């Protein structure tokens, strides 16, 4: 353990993993709540075009990815508002366009080839540089400020958009802010788990947490905890077993999800039992719990 921590590259890797593990589920929880769990994937594909653009213009691929992913996510949000096209079709177009654009641009850049994209597609947490870590930490903190600071407002918008509009909340602004935050999260996480697996880190901890929770705040808190657990343990596993960190993290997350689902059954039974003294409510809840499992 101490040997691992004596390497600076591992210190950076673990710090990046920690930040991404805590930040990604805080965005994912709103996307899952709005039933747009797949949106992170769309942004990830668009971000690939941004990475390639960075190569083409000899700029930092992280920042060009942030820029392009942000534009892409705003585009998706605008399609959701005004689009006559069905939402899933629009998303599909962005998936393919983003992927093809990335491959095209990177091959146009000097000495560039599709191989350059692999680090970004699948992540490479152990090669995070000094300047990368500054970007990862500062953007993660920004994401956390937004997703936690505005959690009541974002919750209301994602729970019932029409009601939120009638309360006078700036719903469009909040939706745009969430889209931009998702884009930033995707690009921050791409160094850790890769663009193709980013969405997993946003969604799976939330899905795992809600197997055993009843409220939004507890789901959010537990998802952050699980996010950190899998990113850190995945990174450590990758060091010891010499396996890719991104894949380890995602597989661990799925294992946690399965574990939580198994835990949920006895937990729900216990709750139904405790609710029994109130016969009407209890039987109602029990029936529903049974129906769901």
């Amino acid at each position, binding site marked *: 353990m101490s040997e691992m921590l004596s390497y600076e590259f591992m210190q950076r890797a673990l710090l990046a993993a920690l930040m991404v593990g805590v930040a990604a589920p805080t965005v994912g*929880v709103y996307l*899952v*709540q*709005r*039933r747009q*769990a797949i949106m992170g994937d769309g942004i990830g594909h668009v971000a690939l075009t941004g990475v390639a653009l960075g190569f083409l213009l000899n700029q930092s691929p992280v920042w060009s990815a942030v820029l392009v992913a942000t534009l892409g996510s705003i585009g998706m949000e605008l399609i959701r508002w005004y689009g006559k096209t069905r939402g899933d079709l629009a998303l599909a177009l962005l998936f393919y366009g983003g992927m093809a654009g990335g491959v095209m641009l990177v091959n146009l850049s000097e000495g560039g080839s599709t191989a350059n994209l692999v680090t970004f597609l699948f992540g490479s947490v152990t090669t995070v540089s000094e300047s990368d870590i500054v970007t990862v930490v500062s953007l993660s903190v920004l994401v956390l400020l937004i997703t936690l600071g*505005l959690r*009541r*407002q974002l*919750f*209301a918008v*994602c*729970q*019932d958009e*029409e*009601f*939120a*509009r*009638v*309360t*006078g*909340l700036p719903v469009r602004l909040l939706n745009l802010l969430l889209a931009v935050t998702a884009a930033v999260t995707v690009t921050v996480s791409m160094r850790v788990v890769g663009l193709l697996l980013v969405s997993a880190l946003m969604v799976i901890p*939330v899905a795992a947490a*809600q197997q055993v*929770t*009843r*409220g*939004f*705040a507890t*789901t959010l808190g537990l998802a952050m905890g699980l996010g950190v657990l899998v990113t850190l343990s995945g990174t450590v596993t990758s060091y010891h077993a010499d396996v890719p960190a991104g894949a380890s993290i995602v597989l661990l997350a799925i294992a946690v999800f399965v574990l939580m689902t198994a835990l949920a059954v006895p937990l729900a039974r216990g709750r139904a039992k405790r609710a029994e003294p109130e016969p009407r*409510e209890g039987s*109602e*809840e029990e029936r*529903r*719990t049974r129906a769901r499992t």
Partner: protein
Amino acid sequence: MSPPEPVISLRGGTASLGGHSVLRGVDLTVEPGEVVALLGANGSGKSTTVRAVVGQVPLTEGELRLFGTPLRRFRQWRRVGYVPQRSTAAAGVPATVREVVSAGRLARTRLRPLGRADKEAVHRALRLIGMDELAGQSVNALSGGQHQRVLIARALAAEPELLIMDEPLAGVDINSQRVLAEALRKQTADGASVLLVLHELGPLAPLIDRAVVLERGRVQRVDHPERLHDVACHPQDSGHPEASARIETGLLP
């Protein structure tokens, strides 16, 4: 002294959804302290009228004022408590009763955090609707009637002067209907105005000052609820055509 402004004043409201004209010149007024029920068959434009009043369906023609202010300039949404038609689709992440009801308080707090007074208002709303003991429950585990009560508590959390409810009794058991009627009675006793869409008057009948019956996007008749009998379900069977034509403005003399 000039008479107080109506809380809702809709003149010649016209709206269409997906190319179909749904409202064809609806006039509707709710005076301060009044409880007005919108009745009519399915597709008569009740829900669209209510959604137009809260600015969620754009009017193609007509004028709408809330508390005397044209809708386009209206910003005091904390004065309005809205209960949308209960959606069947639950959100993708569980939420407790208290969390959902607290969302209603955002009409007052907007972007600032919830203070002690806000939490007390949420608790009062929960108690009023008899859900305080289930505050920590997940809304997904509630029955239809309980869920509807949560949505009403959410609207009440902002302590609104005007309650707008779309089918608050749909799928609600008798027990919850009574709780709801009692909560409404307390609200109106405190001076709140209410506009609600109903299929049938049910236990709410004694509270209602005026019933407006819609038919194919127009006001078909306006009357006191006791004179309506069962017309809510069969509006086309009732009244003389001339009589309903005269009161098409939606205003009682």
